[in-house]
């Protein structure tokens, strides 16, 4: 993933967000993340699966097998209640931090907005 130092820990949040919309399997998540971010977030499989397996062990997601788009069996991941709560917390934290960063980077814009 490009610029990974800029947003440490955000990959989890992005994956949880994808799973909030629908159940997905690993390859599908990489594709979806790349498409939505205009290829900014190009996640490697070697990065994705350890994160997914960690999330599964933490109970934030759960997996099940089902037929994929081409009819082949794929391991789908599903967001759990614990995962929804974790996503909520992470999103709020992200909003707080990004607002703070914007206040530092673009003070003039914010003043205009407030005015």
């Amino acid at each position, binding site marked *: 993933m490009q610029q990974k130092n800029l947003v440490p820990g955000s990959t989890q949040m992005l994956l949880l967000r994808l799973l909030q919309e629908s159940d997905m*399997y*690993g390859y599908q998540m990489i594709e979806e993340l790349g498409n939505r971010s205009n290829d900014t977030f190009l996640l490697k499989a070697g990065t994705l699966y*350890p994160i997914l*397996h960690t999330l599964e062990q933490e109970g934030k997601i759960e997996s099940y097998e089902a037929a994929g788009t081409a009819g*082949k069996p794929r391991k789908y991941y599903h967001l759990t209640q614990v995962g929804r709560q974790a996503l909520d917390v992470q999103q709020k934290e992200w909003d707080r931090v990004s607002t703070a960063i914007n206040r530092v980077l673009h003070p003039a814009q914010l003043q205009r907005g407030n005015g």
Partner: protein
Amino acid sequence: MLPAQLEQWLDRAVAQLRCRAAVQPVKAELKAHLEDQYEAFLAEEDSPEQAARKTVESMGDAVLVGGRLDEVHRPRSAWGPFLWVAMLFVLGTALRVFGELRLGPDGSGEVVSLLVRGCVPVAVLAVVYFGTDLVARMRHTWLIYGGALALVLGTALCTPTINGARIYARPLCGFLVLGYAAVLYRQRGKRLAGLLLSGVAIVPLLLAALYLPALSQAICILLTGLVLCLYCGWRDWFGWGRGRSMGLTAAVAVGLPAIGCLSNPHLVERMLERGNPFSDPAGGGWLDLLRLTIWQGKSPLQPLTSEWADRVPENLFQGLTEESLFRLLGSDDPLTWSAHALGRPAALVLLGALIVCLVLLWRSVLRVRSAAGRMLALAAVAFLTAQLLLEPLNLSVPFLSGGVWSGSVQAVLAGVILSAFRLDPAKGGQEPAAARGWLHRDGKGWQIRLS
């Protein structure tokens, strides 16, 4: 059906998983991913070769990917290997207690003390083996490397110096090779730069050992580093070609000591002196002479009649009783003491058993599938073997020799080796008996396996 290149990637990645219960599900998931990615590249009108190459690139390094998955799927510890090593410590304690009991009822106080001291390394082994898993922490390379170095130097500075030697820090040199293994683990695919960094990384470790000063430990570290680098070259770990990596390693290994010896004759002199028991009869040399005398079949409790008699200082064995002999040799040199107390055949049986144990250990280590585990275990086993080979007269026995301090350090090393054999015997269903490190039966009969 995946192309061979992708199958190879898959096999290498799942080989890093020590938790056997996780292997099949992870393999199936990664295989599905490889298929999807490969087909996507084919659909973009890439040739099959191009598609396979790009798929492998998109997946990342197989060993590192597998290593990260191994961190997530940490296996639980098996009891079998732990009990085997704990038994060795118990055997060492039993030998010492037996020697103490031979000295008569006055030694009974020592027996209790010896039993307590014998328990400490077993407790350390249990804590390291069940409580930590260094193999799963190999990504924190510089923390492991720097931590080991800081531990040795910190102990050297904080403990008393005896006869100019920082003896409490000496046994800790075994940790330095673990740090070195962690550095090598991160040099995968870095070609010449990785190989050169591996060469440079050993220098601070050697300087630390020489600072103690512990010349024999420094040589052990050097030999261990050489074994690790040659092994990495042979497996083409650096991705620079097997021949080139091994050739450069061998050239440096031969060239640097040669330059060192030619430029500093004192170094050669010092090493020869270290190997000669007659050279330092007032210091450590006399103990070597004592060992040598016993192994030549001449008890130090009787007058010497050998060809060396005229070379031995007159008062060397004066006042030496069986009790003082046990005190001298019982804790550090159980083999030499056994040769004296039980006869050379018994000591040779012990020595033979030790060599068999080491050979089996080497065999098991080289069969470890996880690259991180194999690297760490290889470093620890090579270091123990170098110690044994370097001091043939000392006959220090790993896990049997030494006091509570060096025994505890050996227990940490043993715990690290065992962590490479960690397998999950219960998670996800029934495991094969071989995975538990116990006796198991196959078509060829009963066998003992660690992995």
